């Protein structure tokens, strides 16, 4: 599997550098804007370094070296993104590398978001996986590769590059989902994820082909021009539908959500936080980039579909979550419901809704990472204790863990003073402003139902007496505690003084072409 990713990565990197046929039919090498591709390029180089260093570093230091390289790559990429942001502030938004890579506020902000998610994945994942004794040197490499893919999802201005980015991060996640390879359940769920994911990718690719067939280009700017010129051929509508299937799978929208509960339950908890925040965010930013920006002229055609998906996703997510008895499945269905809320932001299709969606993704990432970090600590070895009943009496056994979990659950339920409240508020507000008050009403009612199952978990922690023997494994180590503390900090700070992030979002000038 590692090798596949490796090859794919090389292919993708070479595509970035590859020539596109020019009008005369002569292949000309495009100008490569190295600053624009630096954030992703650094991550890819970091991943390669981790994978290649095996031969050079003594066995004893390999693990440490690969984690250090991963952290280093993320930091360096963050600096490169900072430089890009600075360039953007000087007013140089546009596209780079013959128009396939967008350099705009949306792309750059998303890069920061995904780097943050990757940093969390290392911070919380490494100690967790070590505790489980399934930590492997490739973990940091997979994390940074996934981050590179997700960042390209946000920045891609060409459907082909979007597809490659999608495959890049998906492949990393397929491997991560199978990280506990000695256990049957992770194997099964990873295989399911892989097969369905491959299926969804095929849909996406089919959609891209149809778009190329009608619009004559896979470039989003060209497609936007094409759509702006007049009527939309029905084949293009079919293409939009197929692309939506591919991306809907990634965000876990109903009816493409079947994999979510199984994978969330089967994969190691340390990895699920990364999957839940990263893969979903990547799908959402791609939806925003493609539908809200490039396909904006076709909004009348896709709005009913996305609104319908949103309602179905929220409804199925919250209703099925009510009857779950496993905490990981419950969080899985809750994440489906959140995909439904995020689709409201896509349906609204305004700059305000886009910035609200990004705000939502930031808060959601912090909360879901925190929640799964706690699940990974409480569930103990091999995720053995993930029934909701296993959380009984947690407030007595580990008051701090229970309090932290409460903060995250209240955040996911959208109750002040957490980031979840403000995030939902700004998102709903933006949707009402574009006339979707009925969709918002559905979302608000879904939140009420959702509150019930979050509360149920809280009740179990605080009211029920612990069952059976105390688990002594559920003492979080210092690094995990630090990660949880950070997540709580983000959840509460964004819930009380969200202005700082909001002004960044406002200043980032998220207006993409087409809006």
């Amino acid at each position: 599997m590692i090798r596949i990713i490796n090859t794919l990565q090389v292919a993708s990197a070479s595509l970035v550098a590859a020539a596109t046929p020019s009008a005369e039919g002569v292949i000309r090498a495009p100008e490569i804007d190295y600053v624009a591709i630096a954030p992703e390029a650094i991550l890819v180089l970091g991943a390669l370094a981790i994978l290649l260093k095996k031969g050079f570093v003594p066995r004893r230091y390999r693990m440490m070296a690969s984690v250090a390289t991963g952290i280093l790559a993320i930091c360096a990429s963050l600096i490169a993104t900072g430089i890009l942001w600075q360039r953007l502030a000087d007013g140089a938004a546009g596209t780079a590398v013959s128009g396939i890579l967008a350099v705009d506020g949306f792309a750059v902000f998303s890069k920061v978001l995904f780097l943050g998610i990757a940093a969390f994945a290392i911070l919380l994942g490494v100690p967790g996986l070590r505790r489980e004794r399934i930590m492997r040197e490739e973990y940091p490499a997979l994390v940074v590769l996934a981050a590179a893919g997700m960042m390209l999802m946000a920045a891609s201005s060409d459907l082909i590059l979007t597809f490659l980015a999608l495959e890049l991060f998906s492949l990393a996640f397929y491997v991560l989902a199978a990280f506990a390879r000695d256990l049957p359940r992770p194997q099964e769920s990873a295989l399911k994820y892989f097969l369905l994911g491959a299926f969804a990718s095929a849909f996406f690719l089919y959609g891209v082909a149809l778009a190329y067939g009608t619009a004559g280009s896979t470039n989003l700017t060209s497609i936007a021009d094409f759509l702006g010129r007049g009527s939309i051929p029905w084949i293009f509508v079919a293409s939009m539908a197929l692309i939506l299937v591919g991306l809907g799978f990634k965000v876990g929208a109903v009816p493409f959500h079947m994999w979510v509960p199984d994978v969330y339950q089967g994969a190691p908890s340390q990895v699920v936080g990364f999957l839940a925040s990263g893969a979903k965010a990547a799908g959402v930013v791609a939806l925003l980039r493609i539908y809200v920006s490039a396909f904006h002229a076709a909004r009348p055609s896709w709005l009913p579909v996305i609104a319908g998906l949103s309602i179905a996703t929220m409804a199925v997510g919250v209703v099925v979550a009510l009857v779950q008895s496993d905490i990981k499945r419950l969080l899985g269905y809750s994440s489906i419901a959140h995909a439904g809320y995020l689709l409201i932001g896509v349906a609204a299709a305004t700059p305000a809704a886009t910035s609200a969606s990004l705000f939502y993704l930031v808060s959601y990432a912090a909360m879901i990472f925190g929640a799964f970090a706690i699940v990974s600590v409480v569930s103990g070895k091999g995720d053995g204790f993930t029934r909701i009943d296993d959380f009984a009496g947690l407030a007595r056994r580990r008051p701090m863990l229970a309090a932290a979990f409460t903060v995250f659950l209240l955040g996911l339920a959208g109750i002040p003073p957490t980031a979840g409240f403000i995030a939902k508020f700004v998102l709903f507000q933006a949707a009402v402003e574009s006339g979707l008050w009925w969709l918002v009403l559905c979302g608000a009612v879904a939140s009420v139902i959702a509150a019930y199952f979050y509360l149920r978990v809280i009740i179990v922690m605080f009211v029920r007496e612990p069952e059976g023997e105390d688990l002594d494994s559920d003492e979080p180590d210092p690094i995990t505690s630090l990660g949880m503390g950070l997540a709580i900090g983000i959840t509460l700070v964004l819930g009380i003084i969200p202005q700082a992030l909001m002004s960044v979002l406002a200043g980032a000038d998220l207006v993409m072409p087409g809006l």
Partner: protein
Amino acid sequence: MEFPLLSLIIWLPLVGALTVALIPKDNKQAIQTAAVATTVAGLGLGVWLFTGFKQGEAAMQMVEAYEWIPAIGARYIVGIDGISLFMVLLTLFMFPIAILASLGQIQDRLKAYAIFMLILESAILGAFCALDLLLFFFFWEAMLVPMYFLIAGWGGKRRVYAAIKFFLYTMLGSAFLLVAIFLLAWMHQKQTGSISFDLHSLLDLEIARSTQLWLFIAFSVSFAIKVPVFPLHTWLPDAHTEAPTAGSVVLAAVLLKLGTYGFLRYSIPLFPKATVELAGVLVVLGVIGIVYGAILCLKQSDIKRLVAYSSVSHLGFVVLGIFALTFQGIQGGLLQMLNHGVATGALFLLVGMIYERRHTREIDEFGGLASKMPVFAGLFLVTVFASIGLPGMGGFIGELLILAGTFLRNPWIAAAAATGVILAAVYLLWAYQRVFTGKIDNEENERLSDIGAKEILVVVPLVVLMLFVGFFPRYFLDRTEPSVRQVLTRVEEKGHYREPEIPDPVAAAEKPAGGDSHGGHGAMP
């Protein structure tokens, strides 16, 4: 800049909660001291607030306005007027009592309990003072969490069910409120170009009649659940009965008032046209609540549940008074909010004391307690009188004003509501009789001893307040008058509505057929 007294009042309990959080959980003495000190200090600030309040002014006072989230136009604006003043004071008054009453009763997880109580106080005070709809909604939702934990963590047998029911009911109401708030902010953007949740600027919006109707319904459903107005009241008996004593006190005395306060602060001023059209519906629901709640009280065998249902009946009066849309009605409603808070709070405290001793609340288990617990029986009787609304008690003035205000609008409604007063006397006195009078026929009650000095100390301030309001109602009514006037004037101007005038008996006698009255318009009796 003025001294930010309101912010200090709102955030002081939260600071107290953080302080308690730093105390080790085994140091119960320190936790109790910190919690009591915080709430008592809050009450002290309340006295300062009261003396600083300028009587005779209708506008908001002590306003503090800061930017909060400029990106979405949300601001931190707090202020008080005559309508919110007494709600803030009631909150500041009830919390020290509730916390004092739970000392000794709550042994288990005292630290968490104190933290939740203090957070709850902050959230309630914030909701009463907020003048920005997002800020209001923030506090409105935030108070659910500590209340939920108080019921679920320290409640009775069916506490989990009650807590979740309470939470979901209120949250369902909030869902409508939230969408309506968005629509208001959006309309503000369309009409003025900038988004705002500021109540003051939202009041200037021109809203079409049909839109007003929808928004009024959305706001009012949310508030009606909180009050609770029949038929949305079913969460209340469960929550009140299962909550720990202090939780019931806070729920009954303060939390329910947020609903009626919401009507007065938001529903009516924001949507005057809809108010005039739909007031009748709420009046009828209010009367149904009064009678239905009272009848249910007659059937209760659990005394705490009886007190809980009496809240449905009493708050029916408040809703009736408010939506009679007369000066007397609203004044009476405000006064009754205060009275009900004090009287029902005291009843819950007293019921809690007897439960502590006997661990049952079944009325049939008691009987003849007056001989063993004379002081307790006396305090209970005074409180029952206050709740019924006997002359000399605040409830008398409140109900009289409400009925007078309703009478101006529709005598039949007033007559129907008046039966609630009678029924209240029946169910409360009957309960008193069954619990306290006669001979002791249950052996277990032989061992009961009267309440101690500490318990008396907790109830006496409430009794004093009941009598004070009964004898000096002007003290309160004078301060609420300008604000109530302002609300009504707004409804008259914007809702094309004329407040029914008090018929002048002299003029009516001179010209019996004409019915031409020019009486003292809205003058206090």
